[in-house]
């Protein structure tokens, strides 16, 4: 079968799902906050039911994020939710807690499982471990560099998904740190409403150019990266080794921005596939993204070309 990688993006509502597919996405990731964290929007079973046929009619796929670290109470709800997703024909479930695997084995054995434990998916042997236990795809940690991703792709047969655009999760606490801080600062009225806001960021003294989005939900506090990965001009390096899925993270971005990003990546993928040997990146392909990019957030290569120490 000829190589035709997936272009995957997150979406927050039905309208976005359709528009992103029409812009060139081949798969869309949605979810609801009972089971998924850091979602682009709240996407209920009803919404999945309404949109799934439209998605499939367009030859695209709909995935559902269940990437929370589950507690005992949520574990009780997993069977019904997974059964519902299976009966709605969603194309895969994205998870990082083995309790999802345990429930899926019994209650939805036909559903595909994408292993995404975010920062802890760091080597190809661990990819194979989860594949043997039922995962059909491995999502690499955002902290891996290009050499490590290529090495992982070459050493294992499991489907590989790599995030190529957008922000990444860098800190997740079960603590409600914004509420705690507001309570600590009781006398300061403006702090009462910190929880649930999505217009907050942190800054660290020595790094005045970097703004780290922070927000709180029922599962605690999340801090996101200050930069947006953008691998558009180096995507061919990942295409050359046939990475199976390229993920765009759409959270905390405008719908227009996400559509522009999808179109840009679609253009690059199609140009490369049309003629891999002659492929050359055209700087102008970045223009539409740059035009909509928040000037306070750098478009970066993430960890793709970094050497980390420890």
């Amino acid at each position: 079968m000829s190589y035709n990688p997936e272009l995957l993006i997150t979406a927050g509502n039905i309208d976005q799902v359709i528009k992103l597919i029409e812009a060139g996405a081949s798969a869309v990731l949605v979810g609801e906050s009972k089971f998924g964290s850091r979602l682009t929007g709240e996407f209920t079973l009803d919404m999945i039911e309404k949109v799934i046929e439209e998605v499939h009619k367009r030859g695209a796929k709909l995935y559902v994020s269940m990437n929370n670290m589950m507690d005992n109470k949520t574990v009780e709800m997993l069977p019904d939710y997974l059964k519902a997703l299976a009966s709605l024909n969603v194309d895969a479930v994205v998870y990082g807690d083995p309790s999802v695997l345990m429930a899926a084995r019994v209650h939805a054995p036909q559903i595909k499982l994408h292993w995404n434990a975010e920062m802890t998916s760091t080597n190809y042997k661990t990819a194979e471990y989860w594949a043997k236990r039922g995962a059909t795809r491995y999502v690499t940690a955002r902290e891996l560099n290009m050499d490590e991703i290529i090495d992982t792709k070459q050493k294992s047969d499991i489907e590989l998904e790599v995030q190529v655009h957008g922000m990444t999760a860098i800190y997740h606490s079960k603590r409600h740190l914004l509420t705690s801080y507001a309570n600590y600062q009781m006398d300061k009225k403006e702090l009462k409403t910190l929880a649930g806001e999505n217009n907050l960021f942190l800054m660290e003294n020595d790094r005045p150019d970097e703004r780290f989005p922070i927000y709180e939900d029922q599962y605690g506090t999340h801090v996101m990266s200050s930069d947006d990965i953008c691998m558009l001009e180096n995507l061919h390096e990942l295409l050359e080794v046939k990475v199976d899925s390229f993920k765009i993270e759409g959270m905390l971005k405008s719908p227009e921005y996400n559509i522009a990003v999808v179109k840009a990546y679609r253009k690059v993928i199609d140009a490369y596939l049309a003629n891999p040997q002659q492929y050359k990146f055209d700087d102008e392909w970045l223009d539409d993204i740059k035009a909509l990019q928040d000037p306070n957030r750098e478009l970066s290569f993430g960890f793709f070309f970094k050497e980390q120490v420890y």
Partner: protein
Amino acid sequence: MSTTVKRQRKYFGKRNRLDRPELLAPAGNLEKLKFAIHYGADAVYIGGQQYGLRSNADNFTFEEMKEGVEFANKYGAKVFVATNIYAHNEDLDGIEDYLKNLEDAGIAAIIAADPVIIETAQRVAPKLEVHLSTQQSVLNWSTVQFWKEEGLPRVVLARETSFEEIEEIKKHVDIEIEAFVHGAMCSSFSGRCVLSNHFTDRDSNRGGCCQSCRWKYDLFVDGDLVNADEDTPFAMSSKDLCMLEYIPDLIECGIDSFKVEGRMKSIHYVATVINAYRQAIDAYFEDPEGYELKPELLEEVNKAANRPLNTGFFLDEPGAEDHIYSAEEKPAPYDFAAVVHDYDAETGLATIQQRSYFKVGQEIEFFGPKGRFFKQTVEELYDLKGNKLDVARHPLEMLKIKTSEPVAAMDIMRKKIR
């Protein structure tokens, strides 16, 4: 955390059969290992030269591990090794040899998070038990069941689990549960934080954590700074865990191993904390019905505390009072001063090794295992040649000191600093 409020037994009826839990201590080096075990730890966990999450600790060589295991065996104690990194491809060569070496050294168990290490240990070093690290952030019984089915005899739960959740996990799955009961805590889910990677290019999940969660931050809403004055920046820094007041609850909810954090801490810290928990656990088993915590044990752990203490997630979710926002929180007014090497009952002189500056006239305390304890002031101090001294200023110098009560080798001397 209040020291005066009497413990409310909120959660549990009495269980009929209770096993004595393991008291598991950190040991950053061979000396700390010996003190931890001497002061009552049933097991210690250490780091080797590779695959552990404390790349800055002076970690054990295989030779030191063997010596540690030999020492532990005399006390009937066990030695575990933390191999709790999330490995990258470049780390994979060598895991087999490393794990075989641990097995040969007599290590009882590894504490691992990455499946590649778990699977390799099961394959090449079957005598090593594999305990699932807290870095896997296990919160629920179904995930515990998964790891049990993978052949693991023990799971270290996420620090985010409550008494009720632990009890429910134990009800569902017959497996050893280990939980942190004392020490510093990540404020994030352990393993789910890459602040270090982003701020300093240091890989937190391979031991490079630079403790960015202890830094101060400015918080902005719509681009406007909201931490209204400079004294109270936004912070995510957690107070340290102390569950000493809840020993019956910890035992009765079924925790099999009580884990103390702190491979980077001093022997004074490890000895003080382990001593207190050992006494409390033993007192409970002597008389479960009539058990009450001796208040002096709580005083003791406070003397070694680096930060204010709290109860983590055991009772409820930590709030404003459980985080450190300003610099006003001062550490304990005591410090490690010396270690006893020998004692001469005839002269009443103890031979000690200096560990920090102290002087004649200073208030000091001696303590040893099982709660031996007394206070005195430094009155007579000599060097080994018998010259009288006013101050002990040389690191690791051997000295003689007159003690008001008998002491023994491995007793510890601390000084009052405020």
